[in-house]
């Protein structure tokens, strides 16, 4: 998470259509701007391609979580019933694999789900109530019907000229906001 001493400038721009937004995003990215992001009420088809994003890391996290869960669930049952204190339960073997299946499965799912959920939040850096883009009142439409683009300008770059560029790309509204300082 970025905590700069010198507050950075951000440009937020609304586009009339998703297509226009994606187009603009790609052009700007090829123009060398890295910190570009789209803000839309629902996921846009192929947005990742236009933004040049890598494949999500969530599946990997899920896999690890699942494996950890499954193994620990199984080992727990074996250790507690089969090793630490084996008791004669109606002449059944203290630890029997078939009886261990349900809990092993549940543990797998539970751990996987937890890691997916919290993994995703972590990847997105949530919870994060504040973001510079929120400083633009108009930006509020990003979650309901607006298609927005946000650009974090590098140090010392000229906001005016940048915003000019953006409006050229067909933005219906362009604003420059300054990041808050802690």
């Amino acid at each position: 998470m970025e905590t700069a001493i010198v507050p950075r400038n951000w440009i937020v721009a609304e586009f009339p259509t998703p297509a226009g937004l994606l187009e603009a995003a790609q052009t700007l990215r090829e123009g060398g701007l890295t910190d570009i992001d789209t803000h839309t009420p629902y996921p846009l088809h192929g947005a990742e391609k236009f933004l040049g994003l890598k494949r999500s890391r969530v599946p990997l996290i899920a896999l690890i979580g699942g494996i950890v869960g499954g193994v620990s669930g199984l080992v727990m049952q074996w250790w507690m019933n089969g090793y630490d204190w084996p008791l004669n339960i109606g002449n059944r073997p203290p630890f029997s694999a078939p009886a261990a299946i349900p809990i092993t499965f549940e543990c797998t799912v539970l751990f996987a789900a937890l890691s997916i959920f919290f993994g995703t939040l972590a990847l997105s850096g949530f919870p994060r109530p504040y973001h510079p883009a929120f400083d633009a009142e108009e930006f509020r439409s990003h979650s309901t019907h607006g298609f927005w683009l946000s650009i974090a300008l590098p140090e010392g770059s000229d906001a005016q000229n940048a915003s000019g560029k953006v409006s050229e790309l067909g933005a219906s509204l362009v604003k420059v906001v300054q990041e808050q300082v802690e």
Partner: protein
Amino acid sequence: MSDSRFPLPVLGDEKSSASVEPEVVSAPQSEATTVPDHGYHKSYWRSLEQKLNPEKYKSLNAREFPPNYFDVPKGVDRREFIGLLGASMALAGLTACSEKPVEPILAYTKNPEHMVVGDPLHYATAWSLRGVGTGLLVTAREGRPVKVEGNPEHPVNKGSTGAYDQALTISLYDPKRGQHVRRTASATKPGDIVTASWRTLREQLVTQGAEWAKDGGEGLRFLMEPSSSPSGGDLREKVLKRFPKAKFYAHAQLNHDNAIQGAELAFGTALHPSYALEDADVVVALDADLLEPLPENLGATRGWGERRSELSKLNRVYAIESRLSITGASADQRLRLKPSEIEGFARALLAELGGSVAGLNGLSAQPGRTLSDTEQKWVKAIARDLAGKPSRSLVAVGETQPPVVHAIAYAINSALGNVGTTLQLHPVLTHEKYSSVGTWYPELKEDVDAGKVKALVITAWNPVYASPFDLDVAGLIKKVPLSIYLGSHDDETAKVATWYLPAQHTLETWGDTRAVDGTASIIQPLIRPLFDGQSEHDLLSAFLDAPEQTAYDRLRAFWSGKVGLGFDAKWETWLSTGLIDGQTVPAQRPALNARGLSQALATAPAQGSGVELAFVPDYRVFDGRFANVTWLQEMPDPITKLTWDNAAMMSPGMAKKLGVDRESVIAISVNGQTLEAPVLPVPGYADDFIALPVGYGRELFPSGLPLGGVLGNPVNGGTGFNAYALQTSAALGFVSGAQVKAAGKTYDLALTQDHWTMEGREVSFSQTLAEFKKEPAVEESRGPLPTLLAPVVYEGYQWAMGVDTNRCTGCSACVVACVAENNIPVVGKHQIHRFNREMHWMRIDRYFAGDENEPEVINQPMMCQHCEAAPCEYVCPVNATTTSDEGLNEMVYNRCIGTRYCSNNCPYKVRRFNYLHWNGEKPALEQMAMNPDVTVRARGVMEKCTYCVQRIERTRIKARTEGRPIKEGEIVTACQQACPTHAISFGTLSDQNSETLAWHKDERRYDVLHELNTRPRTAYLMRVTNPNPELA
């Protein structure tokens, strides 16, 4: 009970008796039930109460009625209550979050001899019912009698007991027992009642005694409980010496008079029969309940059991009876006749035998009616059978049958040479030969009306209630200026007497009694009288002009007088073995008095007409004296499985005819009296016949409590109806010509078994000997079944049980024994009727098979089977029930969270759940009866039979500290110990010569629900009957 000698009583004269006050060094294992309390003092009950709370004491005494259990002396109250609170709190886990209060520990100030704190003490004693004694062995824990068992040394009962004996402890701790001496200003004004003391009464008697002595005690009358106590007899003589004109009567509503009169008819002398069934190959029971575990029957019952185990020794029992008794249920063949028809049958049998058996041919016996074909068939078959077994057969007759029937039986027996072998005839040992109401009432009434009677002393149990409606006993008593009633409860009779004295319980008192064969035993107390109780002897001795003696001194004085030299040594032996030597009287072999008998036979038998009623003893309250004994009230009736009530029992056919069903109420009218009673149809009953168990309908013990235990006190008793209200002095046993009609009402009956047949399932097995020989039904139901589970090897002891359904009579002594041993709570009628929540760890399933009129009855005692592959265990989520290294199915209360899954998955449904805090509701006094070796279960935990694991562990520790293995038969479970027929065996399968192993290998062995492959450790032996092929 491995050692044959039991410790001497620690209770002796006043001085040493201080030491057995039930004060407790609270050993860890006894905390659950006993938490010690502040100071004890010499006399534990009264003076402590006075000391701690004189105000309260005054108010107690001022109260009109005896205090209920909330008012039991503070000592017990707090102690026991906190004990339970503590237990439940600990179980409730509250201790985890709250500081446990620091508990006080109290040591004895002076250690009583023999007492090892934490170890039980066993005292040999005895008690008597209707003057017939049973040898007992009572276990005391820190001075509290907690368990009654039979005295193995006793020649008659040989260690076995009946349900009544087993319930003695709880009747000792009965909160409703009479607690205070009470005097009415005059019987005519029962209103103003003053509490008084035994002392005042005694002084009054001493002073008045002098006057009465002047005219030889003209106005003195004694109405006594039948008693065979030698010292009691001595007292009577002394009283009579002082008051030659005084008169002694005895009263018992259920009595032996008919049998004794029968003997007078047959032999010319009054004799009292007992039976040696171990020698009887053929037994004919004419309306006789030989196997009812009464003191006089325990010997016979054991003998019968011996003949049912080995098929080679199998005897044959014919029951010709009106109701279905446990004898009839256990018989090989039954013929149902109305009570009045029995005589005709007996006469026909006599006539039939007259032909073949010498000695009977002189007698001409007219049946007085034409016998049905079946009856004739039976008469012939039985006659042939009897004649074929001279001196090894027996004809027995029930108490309610008229003397002549008994006489006929005596005649047959003596002709067959059974007298002295299977039929033992003893001189009548009770001081008064007869005790039925007819033998004393007319004479006494005459005297009372003539104003002769100045004082009437009543120690007979509650004659006002237990007497026929046509005799106004209450009025009689009221007419007498001074009437003194000594009784266990402040009951109907107490209400009309001028003085009421609480009677000491047999476990509180010194005395002696004699068994049916004359064997005498000392009755020794295990605890100081809990209340103001006096014994009959105390009362009688007040009529002597002699200085007052303690019961102990009086008893010693009497016996030392009899023995003379070396008394002290003898005395100690008597106390430790529970037997007084040289008191047994030899069985008589009188000659048959043919003339007397034929005179009796000359008069044709009375013919019954219409519906007949029989007034039968109840298997739970007997004649009513056990009405407030909760353990017995909750014990299901052996035949009907009815609890807390009595019912009008009749044949299903008759019920159909009347258009009534179970629980619908009928109105029964006879002799101008009408009684409403709920119907309970029972298979095997004679038609046009109703059996009315006596002893219920005591308004003194009101049923139930608000909410019937849904939210509060679980104990809620039924009351039933009073059958004496239909009884006339003319016909005590049975009466005919009753009018019966449906009353259009219903009444709830709490039965513990609703379905009476096996519904076509192979649950319990029964075959005739022939069938069994051809093809045993049980071969499919035993032995290993294929399984995927790897076998588990058990090393060391392998506890197991055997149950012989062929020996089991269903008498239910074991059920009560289990309740007593394992602190099993009583839940009351409502909980049983509405929720089936009875807590008995052991129940006796009773199945009827075959025709509803000629049913075959199979009893199947059912308790935890201790399965090796237990279905209950693998479903418990918290490991609260497991299999021990010795194969016990363990139940751990403090781990149990009460999911009840185990109970659901138990195919035998032997697990019981504490749905409410039953024990929290237990009256403080009853809590004294708890066994400190067994956890008092709290609300919300599952429980079940443990094979009496507390006994196993105690014995194991004893054996291991002595460095030896546990001996065969050293561990005896409570049920096994009580069983009069030895239908239960317990031991380890690892011991090659253990009886249990033998039973497990028996040809009759089967496992219940064997197909489930639960591998139970409890094996059953199937029922094999021996019917007469001619009658098949």
